[in-house]
């Protein structure tokens, strides 16, 4: 009772002080979210409404047909599929390959391990422009220009993912593996049945970052695939710029559709997204 009595006034005082804090944070939120609000509103306006000065905020009657126009302007469905394949391919590939390599670096003792790991880390330090021209040569040499494998294959291998998962495996206790070893399990069994399930938070963090990077990737797909039917959405959207026949309303509807999948994923997996970014940030 006495505790409540001393707490109450303090709590009230704090609450009131928070008004100013909220005011600033809400103003900031408007700047952060406002552009998206305007994007959605514009995507529902008529072309005439987008040209009024001063602009109106809400569309007089929502023009859902703008979203249909996106599909007439671009092979949008095909591009959506391409983005999906590119993202799923890279994510699944990296989860398999990076978890294996990361586990080996964390647990196996072999000569030259430090040196090899250093080699992996050195890839992390190099800006991507130093890979692009030769990657293009290789992909072109394989006859893969304008193909889905061009979008996926170089992205299957990741020094970052290996590093991230190695850090994760290193932090796991060794006891379970020792017990499994005594029971006669081989390394593959220990890895798939014991370690992978334990590493789930690390795998999710890597998957989330890969989804973000793959879905939004622009330069690599721009370089290798110039056939619209093989482009992912990022390149497809960028290709509309400067085409005078394409209306702002269509562009905004296309932007909404292109960003929606990752946005939905983010809303569902908020915690994992934020942890993934924080993890890559704090360890990078």
């Amino acid at each position, binding site marked *: 009772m006495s505790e409540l009595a001393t707490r109450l006034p303090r709590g009230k005082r704090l609450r009131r002080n928070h008004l100013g804090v909220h005011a600033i944070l809400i103003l900031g939120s408007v700047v952060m979210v406002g552009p998206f609000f305007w994007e959605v509103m514009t995507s529902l306006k008529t072309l005439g409404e987008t040209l009024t000065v001063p602009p109106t905020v809400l569309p007089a009657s929502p023009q859902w047909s703008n979203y249909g126009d996106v599909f007439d302007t671009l092979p949008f469905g095909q591009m959506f599929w391409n983005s999906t394949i590119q993202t799923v391919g890279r994510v699944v590939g990296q989860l398999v390959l990076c978890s294996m390599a990361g586990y080996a670096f964390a647990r196996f003792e072999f000569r030259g391990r430090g040196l090899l790991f250093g080699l992996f880390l050195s890839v992390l330090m190099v800006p991507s422009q130093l890979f692009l021209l*030769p990657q293009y040569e290789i992909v072109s040499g394989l006859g893969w220009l304008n193909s889905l494998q061009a979008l996926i294959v170089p992205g299957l291998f990741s020094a970052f993912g290996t590093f991230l998962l190695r850090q994760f495996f290193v932090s796991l206790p060794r006891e379970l593996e020792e017990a499994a070893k005594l029971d006669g399990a081989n390394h593959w069994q220990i890895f798939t049945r014991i370690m992978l399930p334990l590493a789930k938070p690390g795998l999710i963090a890597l998957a989330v970052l890969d989804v973000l990077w793959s879905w939004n990737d622009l330069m690599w797909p721009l370089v290798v695939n110039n056939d619209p039917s093989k482009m992912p959405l990022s390149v497809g959207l960028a290709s509309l710029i400067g085409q005078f026949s394409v209306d702002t309303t269509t562009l905004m509807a296309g932007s909404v559709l292109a960003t929606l999948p990752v946005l939905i994923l983010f809303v569902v997996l908020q915690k994992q997204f934020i942890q993934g970014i924080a993890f890559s940030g704090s360890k990078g």
Partner: protein
Amino acid sequence: MRRNDLFWAAVFILPTLLGLVVFYLWPVVRTLLISFTETGPFGGSEFVGLANYRELLGDARLWGTMVNTLKFTVVALLGIPVALVISALLSTDGLRGVRIYRVLYFLPVVTMPAAVGLIWRTLYNGDVGVINALLGLVGIEGTNWLSNPATALYAIAGVGIWLGLGTQIVIFLAAIQGVPKDLYEAAALDGAGRIRQFWSITLPQISPSVFFISVLAVIGALQTFDLIFVMTGPTNPAYPQTETIVAQFYQRGFVENQQGYAAAIALVILVVIVAVTALQFRLQKKWVHHV
């Protein structure tokens, strides 16, 4: 046992190792080799020694892109104080709605940069854009932000800050949570207010994170491409004032078919990034507080 381990290590590591060698390590060497060649008009390339590098030194346009890139980088760093202030506010004891704010500030991070560029093009439009309409309300006459050579670079760099704020806030929030609470209690007893506490406790305590974020922000800004590609373009009158070095790399290597010259530019980018990052590591000794 040992040999057994080596076998398993090979099974686990080789796929990734081979992929990294083919697609990442060899390409670095190959880029260096390409930078000593020139592509002929009919395909084939010939060895030209250091000619690309010599040309590069006298290339006014390339130096222009370098200046633009450095301006982008300096402006990008201005986002860090903003992220710090927001993070400090979000760390207020007993504040409600922190999770909602965090999600809202994080939204741009998960949005495709190509779409972000399109959205901001609409907002920045000189004739019918909402930004000029809002400025008009307070009596300021706007401009055509993205095609005015005086404003385009800053307009785009502002979007870059907006885009990266969420990541920085998430990392600063985590760092602030890690600051021992008794430091604040002691300071409060000494009569230090919130602002004073921020300057003398929070900031020094999280300075390693601030340093880390500044390194990441600089490396990212030095490689600005997506926003430039979507928000300006070779036909934009402000393009010479906004073209970045990576945009120039893309232009030479993949549009104008000058792979040798582009490779030389790529190596310049590497040198610039290494030099600037090394400089940051030197300077950090002066201001980063190592706990």
